[in-house]
């Protein structure tokens, strides 16, 4: 694609770096921004910059947060003795949307996959073990996607927690079969958290 302006070309190239955006879509978005008032576009840019610069990760659960400790962890009405272990922020959003879960979260930041260069040290596994030891956690619910990598991660964490008196459960495997947690409808997700199984049963049914 040839552009009459280097400025436009640069902007288009930046947009194409976003997931799911090709050259044509990028050009459409740039032309749209060009039609807007300068003020509006400045606001757009500043919002994005502020989002990136000011975002924090909760010191306790590693979810994204506007403060050092996130609003979920600070909410005293929630049950701090239950932790739901998820891969990323999108899973937190999906589970929160069910309005059924009243415990806290622990965001791992991914799943173990040596092929992709991700080992336990690249994830928030150690801090999960620490939390279980220090915070009197009674139950952790594994809500990871039913892939081989998800299974490995559950397996590994439960080995690390072998000597703790914490109950380990897992959401039913059937629910997210073939899809990702974030695509499961709310009712099904809520039910699968309610009917979670002890981890040993999960292994046997598997």
């Amino acid at each position, binding site marked *: 694609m040839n552009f009459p302006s280097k400025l436009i070309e640069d902007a288009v190239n930046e947009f194409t770096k976003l997931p799911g955006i090709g050259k044509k879509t990028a050009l459409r978005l740039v032309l749209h921004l060009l039609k807007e008032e300068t003020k509006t576009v400045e606001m757009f840019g500043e919002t994005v910059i502020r989002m990136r610069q000011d975002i924090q990760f909760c010191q306790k659960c590693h979810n994204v947060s506007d403060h050092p400790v996130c609003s979920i962890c600070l909410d005293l009405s929630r049950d701090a003795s239950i932790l739901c272990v998820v891969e990323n922020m999108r899973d937190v959003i999906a589970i929160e949307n069910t309005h059924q879960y009243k415990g806290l979260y622990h965001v791992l930041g991914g799943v*173990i996959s040596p092929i992709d260069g991700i*080992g336990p040290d690249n994830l928030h596994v150690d801090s999960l073990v620490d939390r279980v030891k220090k915070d009197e956690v009674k139950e952790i619910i594994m809500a990871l996607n039913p892939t*081989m990598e998800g299974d*490995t991660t559950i*397996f590994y964490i439960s*080995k*690390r927690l072998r000597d703790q008196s914490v109950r380990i459960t897992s959401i039913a495997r059937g629910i997210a079969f073939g899809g990702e947690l974030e695509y499961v409808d709310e009712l099904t997700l809520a039910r699968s958290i309610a009917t979670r199984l002890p981890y040993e049963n999960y292994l046997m049914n598997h």
Partner: protein
Amino acid sequence: MQTVYLKELHIANFKNYVQSKITFGEKLNLTVGHNGAGKTNLLDAIYYLCFCKSYFSSNELQNIRHEQNYFRLDGIFEMLQTKQTENIVAKIATHRKKSIIRNDIPYKRLSEHIGLLPLVFVAPDDMQLIKGSSEGRRKLIDGTLSQLDQSYLDALISYNKVIQQRNSLLKQFHERRTFNATLLETYNQQLVPLGTQIHENRIAQTALLLPLLQEYYERISSGKERVNCRYKSVLKQQSFADLLQSNLYQDRSAQRTTEGIHRDDWVFEINGYPLKKYGSQGQQKSFLIALKLAIYQLIRQHKNILPILLLDDIFDKLDELRTTQLIETVMGEHFGQIFISDTQLERMRQIFDNFEVNPKIFKIEDGVVEWLNG
């Protein structure tokens, strides 16, 4: 007993085919043409619709006709007895995701298709199964067992994924000078049930395959020699869990999983000696065909379906007696739809003159199919 057969095939841009629409006979189909005319490619197209891949080339670009950017195969399969049909379409285009469609619904996982339309292919290249490395023999047995049992294929896919991750981990231990016993143990514990399931399945099915192989070999070769097919696996001596444990240092220094069911083999023997070394070319060819027919019967008994049988260019190197025995065998009631290719029309005519069958004969030239006896 059901019979699955290919009723109609529409080929576009597959290998040397431009466009062809062919209606096949429900029992015997003969394709004649000289080398390079496209006989094998036609059989490969049929194979493709049953296995979502070419028998010969895993590189899809090689399956697209020269200077084209896609190929399409569209087959209508029918169950002879119930008249129930399955329409399978394969669409492969450059820069697009491969798509296999069953009755207008695309598969999410291609592995779900394996076994729906059972098929056995006998190709001239198959001599590599006897002469070549263990990989080919594992592929043959795995391809067979996957058609019998979807859970075998699932276990195999999972096993291979875990092995890949475990090997990457071993490599990282070496490169980063680290070690995490708990994580390695995690992979071991995932491998053990999968590997054990695959191993037990292989033992059971090899035991069922052996008498069938011996029976067919006897029939084709008129019973002069005794053949054997022995399953060789490290798990016969040791449990998988113990094996992984005792191989710890070996695996760490090799940076991969050195032993396991991914290294299994099948040893072919004739009168107690390795067939590879001591079998004549005719004996090897007879063995190969007997093995494929045995696999055919294993699938038939398991699924209660007569699979499709493809015999590509197999009359070379078989003497007249063996050829007659083979044809007599496959024309029997234990076989369904058959495709046979050869270079010589006269030889084919002579062979089949002795049988009360009405084959459909197709002449193939430069990727164009012509029905001769219509």
